[in-house]
């Protein structure tokens, strides 16, 4: 299964960079669940994955989108943004 490099926005590279295996059939919404678990993101935060300035839509197939965007596993990273959605 393909491995992708993620970088949590606002964190230094050491703390913010993770490599994650994303199943080829996974949608972006599925991928977000894996990312949320890996980074232990509060469920009250909404997360968005951005590659080359383009937020990835939930319904997109994650692998296909990145292939279309010419993702290079050696140098590219996918930015993870978490933002207050509600919470208390």
């Amino acid at each position: 299964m393909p491995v992708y490099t993620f970088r949590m926005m606002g964190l230094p590279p050491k703390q913010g960079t993770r490599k994650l295996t994303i199943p080829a059939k996974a949608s972006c919404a599925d991928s977000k669940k894996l990312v949320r678990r890996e980074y232990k993101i509060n469920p009250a935060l909404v997360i968005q994955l951005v590659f080359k300035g383009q937020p990835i839509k939930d319904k997109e197939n994650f692998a296909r989108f990145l292939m279309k965007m010419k993702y290079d596993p050696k140098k590219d990273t996918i930015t993870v943004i978490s933002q207050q959605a509600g919470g208390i």
Partner: protein
Amino acid sequence: MSEGSLPNGFREDLLYARHRLLDGWDQVAIEGSTVLIAGIGALGCEISKNLALSGVGHLILVDMDTIEISNLSRQFLFRYGDRGRYKAEVAAERLLEMNPDIDITFHTCKFQEIDTEVIRSVDVLVGGLDSFNARFDLNRLANGLGKVYIDSASTGFKGNVQVVVPDDLDVVGDPTPCFRCFYPVPPSDDMWAPACTVPGEARNRAHCILKAEEEYISDHGKKDEYTPDDLTEMAEIARQVSIRSPHLSEEHFKAGDVENTLGNKLPALITVNAVVSAILSHEVLKVLHRIHGHDIGPSIDPSYLEYNAEYGIFTPLEIKRDPECPVCGASEEIEEVLLSGGASIDDLSTALSGYGIEVRKALVTRSLNGALLWPPGKVPDGAISDLGLEGSEILRFTYTNSDGQRGQKEIRITMEAEQ
């Protein structure tokens, strides 16, 4: 002679003397400006203070919530004695003490309920909101009226600012991606509770639970960790809260509901709010200058900036405009469904099945103002007209397909007049 007894013009000259030393600064332009601030919480208090002391001539403060003790560690315009009063009202009083030479109006309602003509008179719309859906609505409103919208959010050690410049506002700068470009689909309803405040009256299930926790602590004293018995008791109190809430019918809660909701509490700190608000406020001042033909610098580029206080890092993020964005992109084709005047929700459900929308499992809101018609799984009984829908109106359906993917679609529902 005390400062208060100085003639007005002379007092203002002294007050803004240091501003006038800034290259490009035009105090008259700032004094002639109007800014609407939606949300007078931690961010809104800071932003309104910054803009009031900068001399923005007219501030419109909008917040429907009342002041709680837990607000006071961040919302510095409020005092212990203000508990229970409307935030917008108290903030207006305190800001006028700080700068009596500006005009402040306040609204203790949702910004969606304010007359569009009032918003049309505004130069910049500012969001210090704690609800994602409210941000979607403010973004749409700003775009529709051709206004600059500057959004902010803060959680824990992190916060962000996003400047949204619509099309055809060349004097301000190139158009930027809107809030909806960034988040094409709103988060699900389990994130609906407001971020920092329990409103005076419970408006949804989460509020009932938060009120129940307040009452529980008041009766039993503060606990570090709740036991299953505590949660069960709070679930019962939450039910009682729902009964006495005018906006709700009786709701039933389980201990697990209480645990989940209380587990969603978000951290917040005044220092982070102050940094984020200062950045946002300065962006407002820059935009106001450009609107009035002056220049104290361009807007942040890229238009999204995040601050992480833990590491002291500011990170700009390049986002591209979404050409398919239903707000700022190619306008979405709104399809229309015709229903008879006495049509039921079941009729609507049948009519929309062709669009792949399961009406009963969808979150349904009015596109016009974001007002909730029903949350997923809680479709009211009766005719559609019982919901106050008459004539023709665009509804927004946020749904999850049978394959688990989320989507959103707006459809115009037109009710034919009954014969």
